[in-house]
């Protein structure tokens, strides 16, 4: 009697147990979880990051049988770095070497682009076993922007010209500039010798809107953004050359490159393929033409025949 009852209990629960075991296995079907042949691409919450993530995804799909998944909307370069370090992601769609030099390696010795590039590549390899690929071909940098009208009213052309109006100005910035060392607000005040009335850290995607709708007097934007064109914003020349250009590259975990050897040549195909003008155009299509980054990326790859033959 007892054994019969136990058998029935087992019979009842066995399918359930089996279900849990299969489902909680390495990867949940349909979601591209954590299985070995899934490439996990980290992307931050900017348009540019999401376009590049979709481009990488499209390239991997075109050239291999690997699965891909995008870990999207990460808030900063620190988060995507941590994700890679903790092996929650295999690569980050875009890393800027100048940012990594300061925020990850915590160095502020120089602003020389060459020194930054070699140091970051070397230290990422040595310390974190991550490979910094060659630049996509575009660099990004911080840039002060105002509306044409405001520029005319106050006769602004360079950042130094802001000195007079600065104490009354409201300035929109991204969420990390305040805390950056060598090129952050603190260093900026020292270099240019003035500070702004109010600075408002916000989601970088929102600063352009805020400027165009006159909620801000000036913003510190990214030079690659598509909205500079659509709002016809006035870029102020960094006359003290305070902000260095930051080369953009994909950075992958060595572990992932070893596990899936097809990956390295695929990523290498993008070397130098996306010059600044191209990136601005792609950003513009997403930011102004109601197209998803994935839609824009797929069209771009098709138009360029997935960079077939263009391997260096």
């Amino acid at each position, binding site marked *: 009697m007892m054994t*019969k*009852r136990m058998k*029935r*209990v087992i019979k*009842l*629960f066995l399918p*359930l147990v089996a*279900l*849990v075991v299969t*489902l*909680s296995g390495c990867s*949940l079907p*349909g*979601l591209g*979880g*954590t299985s070995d042949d899934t490439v*996990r691409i*980290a992307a931050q*919450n*900017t*348009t540019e990051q*999401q376009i590049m993530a979709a481009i990488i995804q499209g390239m991997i799909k075109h050239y291999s049988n690997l699965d891909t*998944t*995008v*870990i*999207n*909307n*990460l808030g900063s370069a620190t*988060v995507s770095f941590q*994700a890679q370090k*903790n092996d*929650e*992601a295999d690569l980050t769609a875009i890393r800027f070497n100048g940012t990594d030099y300061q925020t990850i390696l915590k160095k502020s010795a120089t602003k020389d682009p060459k020194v930054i590039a070699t140091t970051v590549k070397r230290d990422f390899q040595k310390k974190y076993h991550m490979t910094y690929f060659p630049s996509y071909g575009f660099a990004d940098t911080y840039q002060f922007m105002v509306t044409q009208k405001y520029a005319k009213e106050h006769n602004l052309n360079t950042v130094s010209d802001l000195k007079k109006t600065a104490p009354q100005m409201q300035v929109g910035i991204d969420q990390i500039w305040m805390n950056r060392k060598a090129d952050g607000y603190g260093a900026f005040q020292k270099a240019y010798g003035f500070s702004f009335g109010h600075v408002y850290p916000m*989601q*970088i*995607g*929102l600063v*352009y*809107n805020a400027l*165009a709708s006159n909620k801000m007097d000036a913003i510190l934007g990214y030079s690659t953004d598509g*909205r500079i064109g*659509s*709002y016809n914003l006035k870029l102020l020349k960094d006359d003290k050359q305070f902000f260095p250009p930051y080369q953009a590259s994909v950075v992958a975990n060595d572990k992932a490159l070893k596990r899936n050897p097809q990956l390295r040549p695929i990523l290498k195909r993008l070397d130098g393929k996306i010059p600044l003008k191209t990136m601005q155009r792609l950003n513009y299509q*997403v*930011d*102004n*033409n*109601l*197209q*998803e*980054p*994935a*839609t824009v990326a797929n069209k771009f790859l098709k138009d360029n025949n997935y960079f077939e033959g263009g391997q260096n």
Partner: protein
Amino acid sequence: MQNMNIFQQLFYYFAHNGMYVLSQFDRHFLISIYGVVFAAIVGIPIGIFIAKHRKLSGWVIGIANVIQTVPSLAMLSLIMLALGLGVNTVIVTVFLYALLPIIKNTYTGMLNVNADVLDAGKGMGMTRVQILRLIEIPLSLSVIMAGIRNALVLAIGITAIGSFVGAGGLGDIIIRGTNATNGGAIILAGALPTALMAIISDSVLGFFERKFDPTNKTSQ
């Protein structure tokens, strides 16, 4: 784009990004379903167990209640600290929130089974497992279904927040819309399908709930 009103923009958006929306819709639904299925696998046996051992019921439901009271963003972030970014964190969060409605309803459903019917079953010489399988579960299925229904609606909402830890889904579209210039149409393109998914899931499971209702003669 500026010369179109928001609904024309929305239409334009769907026309150009339809496949993308569909893939995120799929992903969103899958994440929610996985969480709820796991919760059902764990929650229904727990519900049955505490219906048989009522001393435990206060404790178990109390704990599940506390979990329910915790704001979902806080829970999601805490689990993220433990499990890292990505989809698994969201599935675990959904699982935790789906537990309470499922456990509670299973428990209530089991308790509501008429004692006379149980006695009749015993009188016919049924074993405990037979009583469970042939009487208690079928009779409480409708109430359990109601719990799963609540759980799934909750799950769809939590999955939307899951985009903040990189899990993807329709929340991605909403977040991108909030970052975009004049993103109103994009926000709607993410928010409307999310709302629709919740409403449709609710009414479909509501249909099954009525179908399984033992007092509903049409299903017999």
